[in-house]
């Protein structure tokens, strides 16, 4: 390895910021094409209904209308596919009813797509949509996942009891025996509240068709444009993949909601060929509340059995997961593979069993949202562990310490093998940073003011860097989960990197350039990063699951290694030395032990002007691709400590301290990594205190359909955070030693907040979100 230039590990300011700070970002809605037309979607006002009549004749004659599309147009094409097959315990495959591009005779949630109008302007399209005549025959809506199974109606005929699958993992009999023999069993039942992702840029698309080349171009707010293209072409529309270019330009946040293939852009691509002009659609915010995939929405009962000393003996979990009205792209994997496999947490619990019933309801589809299954798992583990500690009268940190996994690699009872970690170290450091020692004095000061103060822990683990494709495939994944990268060295020694990862706030243009600059020993200014365009990037699985650096970055490193290897052979030829005598250091190829050397740019120039070149051994040029398929997941872990002060008279909870100590392995850009944790913490605190996607149980109407009703965390809802990245245990199976940091904050924080509130009030449970009314009720009940 060449000597480091020192970019890695340095808080380099972001290269993308200049355009974002001056209004020069190019988001999808900023792109207007010649001949632009606009789409508007007519959506269902009912949660569950048969469409008995759909008449578009009057609307078609409205001013500016160019075309109206309904489910009839898509009868012959495929449904939106689900990328992960889950088999039930009895061996039957999950129920997989068609997810139509536009509603096909039935609507299954408020906001379901009934028709698409294309017109010269958005206003004309919207006005025309109001002239579409639809008769609905209402059906009873299924809303609450807890009562969906055997409910009064079937969301899909293919799943008459509304169950998509009943899945399980672990040792059921062994866990039940462990609980039967336990000195103490702690039980909790709770709901992991439904969240609505709310990236600040709503979804948008701009689809066009070129009849001369029979080519399609789709600009779309996507976290994974190649996957979008593959799914739309191969599974839905039957468009040859090479005839479709998908571009995800600047994307204003994703948090999972922009992973999925949606019906809107699919309908637009189909229509673009008919209309013969580009079609643009930008989702309105209140439309996004209905039309984006939501997150979480689990109902769980958990039991933890311990011996007399607090050693964990068995963990028994039963969860009902709400999938919503249709199987979204990765929906089936979230409450199973991404959830139950994390239930060991940081602990050496010998027996674990988890059973999951996944149900269809007449609500928006539920899929991956920041953390995707792992926040739900962490909430289960960290709530039950803290509750057990209170019941056993053991300090919560001490109970965790007694049960931490301390030797690695460690194979959990739920299918994962942790490669490395030091849970004691991150917890000890978090305790110091949070000044837990000073808590008693702070509590006394709060009590003197008539306020309650509590402190809660959460020692989370997550599995990131998804994923070893062979493992994922064995578990039902229908896609590979590698990443691709290309390093194109230009004759002058400047470098363009193409990555299949996609940046929608993560700062890849900076972080990836830091890695390459250090590896090649050249300035960051000599490197540019290209992403988000299937017309430029060879392939990519995209960005989600905190995988960009550990998987995508590793693909780039592997390609850089190939560049260096080829460069050494060229240098050996030029320097008249053996290949094996060439070393690459600080951007120079050197003959070991001599002062003979060539700068990187001299070798690259020779590669493209190959007058004096080893043509017998090498091809000209200096351009390499690499695909990287990880051998294991990565396992970021850490301890979060939340301290709250509650006014029992109002139920208002103020987070006084939020401390996070994370082990992400090696860190490339600490500033960016800490920023990722900050954002995750805000979303996790939002889940714990503020956010809740609520459907009316009788009508299936979304009650939290705007920023007037859905409580987004605002600046004055949150404290400043104490965030420290531990020196850490580098990942053992990727060359950068990195683990991933994008989701940790959202995974680790909700149980820490609720544990702190429960501690303050002296109660066993408070439901999320712990709004002032909820907390006030709990305080009142505790005082009685």
């Amino acid at each position, binding site marked *: 390895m060449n000597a480091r230039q020192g970019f890695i590990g340095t808080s380099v300011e*972001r290269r993308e910021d200049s355009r974002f*700070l*001056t*209004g020069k970002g190019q*988001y999808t809605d900023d792109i207007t094409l010649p001949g632009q037309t606009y789409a508007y979607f007519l959506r269902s006002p009912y949660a569950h209904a048969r469409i008995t009549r759909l008449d578009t004749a009057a609307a078609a004659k409205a001013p500016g209308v160019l075309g109206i599309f309904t489910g009839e147009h898509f009868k012959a094409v495929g449904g939106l596919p689900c990328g992960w097959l889950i088999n039930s315990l009895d061996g039957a495959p999950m129920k997989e009813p068609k997810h139509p591009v536009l509603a096909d005779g039935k609507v299954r949630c408020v906001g379901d797509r009934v028709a698409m109008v294309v017109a010269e302007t958005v206003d004309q399209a919207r006005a025309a949509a109001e002239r579409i005549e639809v008769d609905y025959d209402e059906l009873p809506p299924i809303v609450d996942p807890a009562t969906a199974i055997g409910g009064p109606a079937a969301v899909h005929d293919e799943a008459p009891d509304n169950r998509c699958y009943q899945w399980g993992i672990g040792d059921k009999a062994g866990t039940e025996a462990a609980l039967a023999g336990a000195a103490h069993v702690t039980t909790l039942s709770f709901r992991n509240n439904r969240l609505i992702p709310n990236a600040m840029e709503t979804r948008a698309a701009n689809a066009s068709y070129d009849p001369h080349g029979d080519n399609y171009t789709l600009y779309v707010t996507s976290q994974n444009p190649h996957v979008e293209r593959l799914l739309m072409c191969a599974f839905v529309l039957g468009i040859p993949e090479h005839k479709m270019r998908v571009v995800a330009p600047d994307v*204003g946040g994703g948090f999972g909601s922009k992973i999925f293939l949606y019906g809107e852009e699919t309908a637009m691509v189909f229509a673009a060929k008919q209309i013969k002009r580009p079609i643009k659609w930008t989702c309105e915010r209140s439309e996004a509340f209905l039309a984006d995939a939501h997150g979480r929405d689990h109902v769980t009962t958990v039991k933890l059995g311990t011996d007399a000393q607090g050693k964990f003996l068995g963990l028994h979990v039963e969860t009902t997961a709400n999938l919503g009205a249709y199987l979204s792209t990765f929906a089936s994997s979230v409450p199973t593979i991404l959830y139950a496999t994390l239930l060991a947490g940081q602990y050496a619990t010998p027996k674990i069993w988890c059973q999951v019933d996944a149900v269809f309801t007449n609500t928006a589809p539920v899929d991956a949202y920041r953390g995707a299954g792992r926040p739900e798992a962490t909430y289960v583990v960290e709530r039950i562990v803290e509750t057990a500690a209170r019941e056993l009268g053991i300090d919560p940190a001490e109970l965790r310490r007694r049960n931490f996994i301390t030797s690695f690699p460690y194979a959990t009872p739920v299918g994962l093998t942790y490669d490395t970690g030091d849970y004691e170290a991150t917890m000890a450091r978090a305790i110091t940073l949070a000044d837990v020692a000073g808590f008693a004095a702070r509590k006394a000061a709060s009590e003197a003011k008539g306020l309650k103060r509590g402190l809660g822990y959460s020692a989370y683990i997550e599995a990131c860097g998804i994923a070893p494709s062979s493992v994922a495939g064995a578990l039902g994944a229908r896609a590979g989960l590698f990443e691709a990268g290309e390093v194109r060295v230009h004759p002058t020694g400047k470098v363009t990197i193409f990555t299949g990862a996609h940046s929608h706030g993560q700062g890849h243009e900076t972080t990836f350039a830091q890695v390459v600059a250090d590896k090649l020993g050249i300035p960051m200014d000599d490197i540019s990063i290209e992403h988000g365009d299937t017309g430029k990037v060879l392939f990519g699985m995209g960005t989600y699951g905190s995988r960009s650096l550990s998987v995508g970055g590793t693909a780039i490193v592997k390609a850089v290694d190939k560049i260096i290897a080829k460069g050494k052979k060229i240098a050996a030829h030029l320097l008249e030395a053996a290949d094996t005598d060439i070393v690459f250091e600080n951007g120079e190829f050197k003959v070991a032990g001599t002062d003979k050397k060539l700068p990187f740019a001299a070798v690259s120039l020779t590669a493209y002007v190959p007058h004096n070149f080893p043509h017998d051994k090498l091809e000209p040029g200096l351009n390499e691709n690499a695909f990287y398929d990880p051998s294991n997941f990565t396992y970021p872990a850490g301890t979060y400590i939340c301290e709250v002060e509650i006014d029992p008279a109002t139920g208002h909870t103020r987070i006084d301290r939020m401390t996070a100590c994370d082990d992400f392995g090696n860190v490339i850009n600490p500033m960016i990594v800490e920023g990722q944790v900050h954002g995750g913490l805000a*979303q996790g605190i939002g889940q714990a205190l503020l956010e809740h996607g609520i459907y009316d149980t009788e009508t299936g109407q979304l009650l939290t359909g705007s920023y007037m009703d859905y409580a987004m965390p*605002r*600046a004055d809802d949150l404290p400043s955070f104490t965030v420290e990245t531990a020196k850490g245990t580098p990942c053992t199976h990727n060359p950068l030693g990195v683990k991933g940091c994008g989701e940790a904050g959202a995974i680790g924080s909700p149980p820490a907040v609720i544990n702190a509130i429960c501690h303050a009030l002296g109660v066993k449970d408070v439901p999320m979100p712990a709004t002032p009314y909820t907390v006030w009720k709990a305080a009142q009940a505790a005082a009685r």
Partner: protein
Amino acid sequence: MGMQITLTVNGESITREAEPNTLLVTFIRETLRLTGTHVGCDTSQCGACTVHVNGRATKSCGLLAVQADGADITTIEGLAAADGTLHPMQAAFRACHGLQCGFCTPGMVMSAVDLVQHHGCHNEQQVREALEGNICRCTGYHNIVKAVQQGAAAMKA
């Protein structure tokens, strides 16, 4: 029926037609093609569309274009110096990593500049309360607050 309006945008006088029901933000984005001003909601809650109207931070989704007839408007594109030197608030956002996806950023920066220009302050709590009308989903506001405080100091320097 369009109405003719004349206003100053980023120092330049412009005259254009605007429909009576066109929002100022739509006029800025679609008619003037200044796409740095963003639309993040439809209830005037998120603040992504914040611009300066006659020197005060204003959500441009809450105003009709025709109401801005005669106004002096600054958008994010007009904040940096003519030579490209970033405004101290823009520079502070970069230095403090006060932005991630960049979508709320223009509105956030315009609000922050107004905050410094028209309100004393700027301890952490004041900054947090003043930014209540600008929603960010990426940063958790931690670094935005730092950036506003640093930018405020630089603007006064």
